[in-house]
């Protein structure tokens, strides 16, 4: 009698399967990967002025787009697609096999991370080629970028899985989830310069990860001189790290405790 496969190895297998399934849905591939680039082109073309010495709005917006890409791909994507899988009965079928919940979650995390990497490469490519965005030369900034992407994507995945119990049906999921994400994007300094928002909006946004992800991404893609223009007069990367870890723990806790495999 062989041993049953480990949760991690099954999680990696599921990640491969999720990616293969995703690539075969051409509409969602195009939407997920190209939509952020289209937004970058629109905003970058409309607001072409500089907002500080050596800082264009395109640069500011690029940081916001990468951060909100993490929220769109993980939180929004999963909170919409998991209820659909539940409606189909696909989750119930998985529940009847020896595959543990953790493998399913790992598979989703891999899907989110891989599509994020592709999305980021496209955004950076367009940013550099057409909107004068400069790549950071400092190795520390790349390290910050790496942990922000990893932690942001994990946090967003966990929260998306946790939130997937809230929509009653797959069809209604988008109507529940999308407004939350759009409001957070407006409040968190993705479309507007954060410091120009009313302070109640800033305080509200500070509870959620997106504001911190955006600020963290600015610390990577904007010159350090810009840090003084942030609310706290610094990039606050330690605080960003802490906020993301806390949300990651909250997400994992609810994902594990509350996940629903079946409609009723």
């Amino acid at each position, binding site marked *: 009698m062989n041993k049953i*496969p480990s949760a991690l190895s099954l999680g990696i297998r599921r990640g491969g399967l999720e990616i293969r399934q995703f690539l075969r849905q051409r509409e969602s591939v195009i939407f997920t990967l190209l939509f952020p680039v289209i937004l970058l082109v629109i905003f970058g073309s409309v607001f072409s002025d500089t907002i500080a010495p050596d800082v264009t709005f395109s640069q500011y917006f690029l940081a916001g787009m990468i951060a909100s890409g993490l929220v769109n791909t993980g939180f929004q994507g999963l909170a919409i697609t998991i209820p659909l899988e539940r409606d*189909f009965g696909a989750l119930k079928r998985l529940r*009847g096999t020896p595959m543990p919940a953790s493998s399913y979650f790992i598979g989703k995390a891999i899907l989110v991370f891989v599509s994020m990497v592709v999305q980021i490469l496209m955004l950076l490519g367009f940013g550099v080629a057409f909107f004068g965005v400069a790549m950071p030369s400092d190795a520390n900034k790349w390290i910050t970028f790496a942990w922000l992407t990893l932690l942001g994507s994990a946090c967003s995945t966990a929260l998306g899985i946790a939130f997937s119990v809230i929509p009653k049906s797959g069809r209604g999921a988008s109507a529940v989830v999308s407004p939350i994400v759009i409001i957070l994007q407006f409040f968190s300094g993705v479309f507007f310069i954060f410091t120009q928002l009313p302070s109640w909006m800033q305080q509200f946004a500070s509870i959620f990860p997106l504001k911190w992800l955006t600020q963290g991404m600015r610390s990577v893609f904007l010159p350090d001189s810009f840090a003084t223009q942030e609310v706290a007069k610094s990039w606050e990367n330690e605080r960003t790290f802490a906020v993301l870890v806390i949300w990651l723990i909250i997400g994992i806790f609810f994902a594990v405790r509350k996940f629903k495999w079946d409609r009723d």
Partner: protein
Amino acid sequence: MNAIEVNGLRKSYGDVHAVQGIDLSIASGEIFALLGPNGAGKTTTVEILEGFRSRDGGDVSVLGFDPREEGHAAREWRNRIGIVLQSTSDSGDLTVIETIEHFSGYYSNPRNVCEVINAVGLDEKAGSLIRKLSGGQRRRLDVALGIIGNPELLFLDEPTTGFDPEARRAFWALIQQLRGNGTTILLTTHYLDEAEALADRVGVINNGQIIEIATPTELGGRSTAQALVTWRDGSTMKSENTNNPTALVSKLMTKFNGEIPELTVTRPSLEDIYLTMIGLTHE
């Protein structure tokens, strides 16, 4: 040891008592069919045994394990069972072989992927996307995913709904083959002929209780029920219920001096018996 052992199982949803004290023993290697009208408590009972639903009372042992439990022991347990649910579907963006191959990776001792595809008769569709399959072909894929783990115990919930008669016969042959390997099977079905063809014993469930458990030929006193003999006498059809149909036919032969016009001798079908048991009459 019995594969399934249930004592005093109870489950309510609010004021609705879906299952009211069910006792059930299914031996290892047995094919057991659970029959009952919609809402009788069939699905609730089976889903409790499969570990999908909680119960309010009673003892349940499935392969020596309480399906209520979680964690690693539950994984070991699910490794030994196969479940074919009533309705499953998915986005359909994978091929038949990709899906079966992937699921085979969940188990410690899976069956050979090609062998399973062959057993459910999907050879020609192995490379097709699931969304391009017909309803009956999807159902066969469901069955393939239920048996890929080489289960000791297989749950089949209305497995042949939507099959054409040919596909149903092929499916029955597959089940007979699994029986040959010693797999225990708990089947729920709406088709009485299916239960009769496959099951060693059938249990009829109604209003959350088991009314009777017997072999298909003995259910509801079927084996001792009177036979109905009908024939044509001139311009009228005649019929008679009798315990001795052979004697009656022989008498009629003398009367007609040979061939009896439009003779039929029938015993109540499993369906007739079943419908009487659940309080419905035929037609």
